[in-house]
């Protein structure tokens, strides 16, 4: 990771080096945005909508999003469902195990701010942004697959705008 951070500083010294780095940004960004593999991580009813989005009717594969059963192979964690205080350290552990660049989508009201469990709950973490940095928030209880699509497209926009070394 340290090496790729030095690439722009090294290349841009040469004539035409700026073109190289900006084109590299585009290539890297396009590749990453087109293959956001997400972690199989569903903790409540949002996971059902996530499954629907992944199945053939909504077909996540056409965004290049394929589920992975291991955090080591995934770029994105879609926190689908209520994160309890007992689950929070496990979510953090999974996030830490993912290789950079890594992204988080908070799907559903529970992960945005506790949602229906905001009041009178001793067990639910009120927003997963207390635990992991969140890139896209998708409200809804649960959000429909269309909303999830919108969130993923927003994340793709964000990934495409990134420069080399931003995430390193």
């Amino acid at each position, binding site marked *: 990771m340290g090496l790729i951070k030095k690439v722009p500083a090294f290349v841009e010294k040469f004539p035409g080096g700026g073109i190289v780095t900006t084109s590299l940004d585009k290539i890297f960004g396009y590749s990453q945005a087109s293959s956001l593999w997400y972690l199989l991580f569903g903790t409540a009813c949002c996971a059902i909508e996530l499954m629907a989005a992944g199945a053939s009717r909504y077909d996540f594969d056409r965004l290049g999003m394929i589920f992975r059963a291991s955090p080591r192979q995934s770029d994105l964690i879609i926190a689908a469902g209520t994160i309890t*205080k007992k689950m929070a350290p496990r979510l953090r552990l999974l996030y830490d195990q993912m290789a950079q660049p890594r992204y988080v989508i908070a799907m559903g009201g529970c992960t945005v701010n506790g949602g229906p469990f905001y*009041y009178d709950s*001793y067990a639910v973490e009120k927003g997963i942004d207390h635990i992991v940095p969140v890139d896209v928030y998708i409200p809804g209880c649960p959000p429909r697959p269309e909303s999830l699509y919108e969130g993923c497209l927003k994340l793709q926009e964000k990934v495409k705008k990134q420069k080399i070394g931003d995430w390193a």
Partner: protein
Amino acid sequence: MDREKLTAYLQEKFGDKIEALTCGPVEPFFLVKNKEEILQFCKDIRDDLELQIDYLCAITAVDTTEKFEIIYSVASVAKKIRFDYKVILDHDNPEIDSVIDAWAGADWYEREIWELYGVKIKNHPSLGQFLLPDDWNQGHPMRRDWDAPDFIRMPEF
């Protein structure tokens, strides 16, 4: 055995040890008056040939701020019977006998009641950390008077 017959049978068998309560149209509901006799009562209905209560559906608790109620839901698969009964405990220092000796499935329900309500279960083999997070040190969260720094009560509307 329908509802009236079951109520009559239990009242005949246990006399004034139990009291029939009205609780909606669905299941018969009883109060076991003496909390010391709860284990014996469970064993009696389990071993009774007319009842054959072989299945413990659930044990749950209610905190009414003045007292604790422990509610047992039981059923007989063989005789197709279902009913509930409860015992009433003091709010200060609540204690109840474990019914693991009657139904082994009572284990986890009783651990849950201990952890969430702080009702002490006597003669239970392993009361302790069970459902709450490993580093939990904030007491029994299902009690009415429970509070914590990040606990937000529903405002009155």
